[in-house]
């Protein structure tokens, strides 16, 4: 009996004009999101390569490593284009220094503010908005629609159990709607291959899980709307209820959770932290100037080698102690802020998980590496690189040049051998390579939300099942 009912369910959905139109729209949007993403990726890679080349040219034009204004650039990652997450808010460029705090500038949204308003059409958007609406459109009248059309009584005038009917409804809807959605998603994957997006094996696994999460999110809305349809007699009422749930899930809960979390667990703003850092730096600068003045006042200025080397040694020791002091202060400040922010984020994510949309979004961002932790992981990579960069500069110049450094040079009309320096070779610089997040960490970060989506599917599936067992067939 289940087979007959399941077959009917599949046919009924697939033969419908509603399915043809909504599936076509969803397929076009999925493919468009892949296409736009791939184009954005290639454009970002071009910009990245161009920026690197310009940086290399500017280094090559310099003759002294002390004069070099080295910049490092965040390399675009393939999965970023499918789930933008915070990637467009995070700066792509960093002025690399041997010491001092590194900051990220030139984010995609600062370069293209228009996109900050309307955002990009990525796969995440398609799943959150289109898939969920698609699910509701097919689920809201799955049960009560059959009652209204009289087919429910007709079906149950035969030897049909409620359990097999509701199972066929749930399984049929999931198969008839879920499998066709897989087609454009798989075509999108082929587009990634065909249009030259380099994906590692780990990234393919992450993409596979991302698609799985998308289908789970779709399943949540489908089973939820079928459950509502089995709880309410009139399809117009179940449509309204499903829509209200959708609005809360997609629009209100995620935004509301951030507001609520900021009330429950407050954290100072970034501006406040920056202001404290600026104050500290200004104070440190004054103290450094005073120390330098004192150093000069305690000895007579000379241009001999002994004086310059003593001055260099003084500056090295002064830089080291001030840098240590700065690092400690900034470290404490950053750690405190990060702890408060973590706590706030935990609240926000915890509350937002009431919404299946938010659960999917958190899982998707974790799987594509564009979650809120992305910036800090990248800053850690920058810090790691800064150490090797500092060693390189130390080796090349004998000191870790910083913004307060005074360089004493002797000039003469006839260029000495020292003055006739060759231009620099940028390839000597240590290469900035970001270590990819291990697959295990990525999966572990998203496992809870993937599990939650599975649980929600099971919960609404069971809810629909039991609601139908009590449904008035008359």
């Amino acid at each position, binding site marked *: *009996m289940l087979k*007959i*009912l399941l077959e*009917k369910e599949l*046919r*009924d959905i697939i*033969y*419908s*004009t509603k399915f043809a139109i909504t599936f076509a729209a969803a397929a076009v949007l999925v493919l468009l999101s892949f296409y736009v993403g791939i184009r954005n990726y290639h454009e970002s890679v071009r910009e990245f390569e161009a920026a690197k080349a310009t940086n290399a040219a500017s280094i090559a034009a310099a003759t002294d490593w002390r004069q070099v204004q080295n910049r490092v650039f965040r390399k675009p990652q393939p999965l970023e284009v499918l789930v933008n997450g915070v990637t467009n808010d995070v700066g792509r460029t960093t002025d690399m220094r041997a010491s001092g705090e590194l900051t990220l500038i030139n984010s995609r949204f600062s370069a293209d503010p228009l996109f900050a308003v309307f955002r990009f059409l990525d796969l995440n958007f398609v799943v959150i908005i289109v898939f969920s609406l698609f699910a509701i459109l097919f689920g809201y009248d799955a049960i009560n629609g059959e009652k*209204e*059309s*009289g*087919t429910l*009584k*007709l*079906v*149950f*005038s*035969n*030897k*049909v*159990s409620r359990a097999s009917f509701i199972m066929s409804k749930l399984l049929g809807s999931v198969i008839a709607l879920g499998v066709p959605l897989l087609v454009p998603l798989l075509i999108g994957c082929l587009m990634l291959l065909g249009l030259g997006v380099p994906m590692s094996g780990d990234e393919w696994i992450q993409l596979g899980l991302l698609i799985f999460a998308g289908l789970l999110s779709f399943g949540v809305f489908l089973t939820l709307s079928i459950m509502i349809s089995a709880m309410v007699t009139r399809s117009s009422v179940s449509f309204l209820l499903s829509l209200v749930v959708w609005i809360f899930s997609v629009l209100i809960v995620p935004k509301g959770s951030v507001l609520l979390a900021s009330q429950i667990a407050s954290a100072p703003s970034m501006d406040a932290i920056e202001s404290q850092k600026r104050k500290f730096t200004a104070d440190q600068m004054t103290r450094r100037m005073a120390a330098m003045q004192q150093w000069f006042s305690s000895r007579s200025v000379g241009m001999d080698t002994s004086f310059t080397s003593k001055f260099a040694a003084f500056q090295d020791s002064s830089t080291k102690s001030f840098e240590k002091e700065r690092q400690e202060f900034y470290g404490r400040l950053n750690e405190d802020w990060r702890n408060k922010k973590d706590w706030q984020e935990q609240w926000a994510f915890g509350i937002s998980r009431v919404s299946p949309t938010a659960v999917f979004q958190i899982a998707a961002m974790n799987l594509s590496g564009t979650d809120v932790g992305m910036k800090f992981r990248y800053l850690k990579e920058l810090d790691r690189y800064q150490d090797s960069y500092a060693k390189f500069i130390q080796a090349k110049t004998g000191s870790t040049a910083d913004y307060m450094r005074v360089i004493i040079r002797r000039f003469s009309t006839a260029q000495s051998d020292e003055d006739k320096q060759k231009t620099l070779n940028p390839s000597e610089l240590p290469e900035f390579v970001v270590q990819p997040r291990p697959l295990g960490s990525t999966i572990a970060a998203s496992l809870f939300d993937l599990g939650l989506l599975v649980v929600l599917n099971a919960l609404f599936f069971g809810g629909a099942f039991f609601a139908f067992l009590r449904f008035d*067939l*008359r």
Partner: protein
Amino acid sequence: MDQTNILEAQMLTKVYEDGLCALDHVSFSVKAGEIFCLLGDNGAGKTTTINLFLGFLNPTEGVAIINGIDVAKDPLAAKQHVAYLSDVVMLYPNFTARQNLDFFARLGGRQNLKRDDYYNVLRQVGLQEKAFEQRLKGFSKGMRQKVGLAIAIVKEAPAIILDEPTSGLDPKAANEFLAILHQLRAQGRAILISTHDIFRAKEISDTVGIMSEGKLLAMKTRAELEHENLEKLYLDYIQGKVAA
């Protein structure tokens, strides 16, 4: 004709949780080759009786029996012996007439029917050939009713229950419909019809049961009705002018 009771209501009573008595000790039977019409206005208890026969409701008292099976005790087994046509026959609009018939035939236990078998049944109910493979979306109420009747026929159940089958049909479609019911009666089916159409009830029935406020007030056979004005009789009964 076989005189076995195919459909039987014995003191059938339904009182809802809110205390409303929808059916009050109703007893009647429908034999093979008989058409029994339950006549009554809205809320008389006709649909409740049908719902009890189909197992959509459990009786408070009494039993509904189909082909010797107590519906309340074994609803799934009882349903194998009955075909049903509801007053709202929307069916599946994305399916063709034949596909609708195929689905319900298989649901009714007729697994091995061929396309021609379906076509024969659709011909039998008078559906135009060109409509066999058309989706039901564009079908009129009369056409859908014919497909619904085909669904009831194809099950080959000994009992057929029809809930307001001619409501909304134009006179021509209603006459065609009744002609098919005559054929089914001739084939030995026991047919229970709920209706408030007095004239059609008199035309088609072997027995008419007049219902009002959950009670079966009277049962009149075709022979008894030949000498009576059914409309007057019906109005007298429901207005309480005649004692039940």
